[in-house]
């Protein structure tokens, strides 16, 4: 392989200790389990999965906001644990779903965007103002908004402010957690176009968390599918959309309702049971909902199968499990 990956996540776990209610004591909740993930420079790596699957926890681990309980993350070949907070923050910045709650309501747009420069001690007053004006142009905000407060802006403008604030110290990697989920589709289109332009212009790498598969197909290059803390499938976007393998991924793709009136609603065939993350199902976490579950699924956790850069955790694709199952299925 040529260069080091921009971000290299190696077998990380993030475990919370959660209270189970009055007098019930605390139990571990494994929000992220054994996650391996790599994003190369210039790539857009998407992370998809339902709510509670661990996407934000993974993002927070990558952002060093809540470091992993175990495992290691490398940025450009260097262990994140060994980097200072500021040194790390200069290279990796977040963009959150709801810019309204991530922006200080009493701080003007200009002060908000320039704040990272002050935190990192970059430039003098004049240079900071110049950077501000340049970044406003870059993200498509009119200069007259510098004195405005967040509530005076539209949702799309607020997301541009959040992006400008993330970019002003010229990071290499943006971690975007549902950046367009709170926006109307016409505004979502503006922000997606902007993210695309910025990526090519500035050579950025993105980790994009979203539940919208159409957005993934449109702007990502690789995609990881999470279910109950685990990455159950990971592939290039072309591969995953052309030939999804994991039963959960297949259900996700069928659930992406494209605006075609000749297609009806999909019949996913998933069971209507909802696992408890504190006490996840045995074997494959997905087996109680899976439409193809078979004997080994409730007993053995599927191992990771990799071929041609397409990785997944499902017994159906494990030749050893399948041959053993076929041999024994007579006496089960």
């Amino acid at each position, binding site marked *: 392989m040529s260069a080091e990956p921009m971000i290299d996540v190696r077998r990380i776990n993030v475990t919370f200790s959660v209270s189970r209610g009055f007098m019930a004591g605390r139990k571990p909740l494994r929000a992220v389990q054994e996650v391996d993930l790599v994003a190369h420079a210039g790539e857009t790596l998407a992370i998809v999965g339902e709510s509670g699957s661990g996407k934000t926890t993974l993002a927070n681990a990558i952002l060093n906001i809540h470091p992993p309980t175990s495992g290691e993350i490398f940025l450009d070949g260097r262990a994140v644990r060994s980097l200072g907070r500021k040194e790390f923050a200069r290279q990796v910045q977040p963009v959150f779903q709801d810019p309204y709650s991530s922006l200080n309501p009493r701080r003007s747009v200009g002060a908000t965007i320039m704040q990272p420069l002050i935190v990192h001690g970059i430039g003098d007053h004049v240079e900071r103002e110049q950077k501000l004006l340049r970044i406003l142009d870059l993200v498509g905000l009119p200069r007259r908004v510098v004195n405005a407060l967040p509530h005076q802006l539209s949702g799309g403008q607020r997301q541009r402010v959040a992006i400008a604030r993330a970019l002003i110290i010229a990071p290499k990697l943006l971690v975007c957690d549902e950046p367009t989920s709170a926006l109307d589709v016409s505004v979502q289109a503006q922000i997606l176009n902007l993210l695309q332009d910025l990526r090519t212009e500035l050579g950025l790498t993105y980790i994009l968390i979203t*539940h919208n598969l159409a957005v993934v197909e449109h702007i990502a290059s690789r995609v990881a599918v999470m279910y109950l803390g685990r990455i159950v499938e990971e592939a290039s976007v072309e591969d995953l959309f052309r030939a999804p393998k994991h039963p959960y991924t297949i259900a996700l793709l069928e659930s992406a*309702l*494209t605006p075609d009136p000749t297609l009806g609603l999909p*019949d996913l065939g998933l069971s209507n*049971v909802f696992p408890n993350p504190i006490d996840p199902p045995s074997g494959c976490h997905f087996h109680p909902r899976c439409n193809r579950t078979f004997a080994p699924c409730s007993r053995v956790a599927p191992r990771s199968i990799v071929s041609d850069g397409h990785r997944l955790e499902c017994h159906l694709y494990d030749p050893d499990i399948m041959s053993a199952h076929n041999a024994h299925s007579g006496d089960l």
Partner: protein
Amino acid sequence: MTAPLLKVDDLHVRIGARDRQVHAVRGISFEIARGETLSIVGESGCGKSMTSLAVMGLLPRTARRESHGISIDGARIDGLSDRAMSDLRGLKLAMIFQEPMTALNPVYTIGNQLEEAYRRHNPAAARGDARARAVYLLEKVGITAASERLNQYPHQLSGGLRQRVMIAMALMCGPDLIIADEPTTALDVTIQAQILRLLRDLQTEFNLSILLITHDLGIVARTADKVAVMYAGEFVETGTAREVFNAPAHPYTRGLLAAIPVPGKTERGGKLAAIPGTVPSLTDHLEGCSFFGRCSRAVPDCALGHVALTEPSAGRAWRCRRPYLEEAAHQGGALS
């Protein structure tokens, strides 16, 4: 022809004091036949929720409703007292909200709430009847071990299950019309697909009429018989789902469709057609077309007067002086 199940004629909703009044719904009319789904689609703030609350008689106190008539099964309901309207809710028409907790009370069990919904309209019914109906409907909406669930509280259920309970509650008294305002917006996509299928199956089984309100064009295309595209308080385009999606005439409808990436159709990584500008303020009197200023086809005339509705056939209409007509006729499906 029998009367449509729901008929709404020239509905207006105005909110707030006269000096800073929001004219949220600006003269919309529609009909829903028995067993049919009409979907109202539009971006946030266009007046969808005010429309649904106006039909339900549940507008906030600061809002005023005016119309030339709202009728169910041919009988006017817009003149009814609050009391009479409240008797009608649940019985004839019921609502499903985006957030089930707006309809479910956290301090009562699921069973209590379902039975109460039934007994309110059937005071003479035996307790056992209400309970039997609750179990029957919980099973209908795909909830396993229904009789055990009756003793659970709403917070003990996942979002998807709560939404199923709310659907069961809406069906307790066998209404003819369900108004569902963004019923799946808060749910994960796989659960969303399952809930929408459930609604469709229940619709077939009970011959329900559904008014489905959503901002999601995908949901509309996959579920609606008829579509109304709403913008700034008005319907700017109506038609069957096929008419509206395959041959959209209004520039706003086209703009919305071009703004969303569609796997396999939109060029990957290409520019999406964003709609420039923002929606007009609904506090003002709107002169000319409400989409003027954002529309790529606008001519100066569009800013003048009131743009009339063009209605080439019953139910098919648009409010635009420069609709995409040639293209619509030739296009047959493929949106560029």
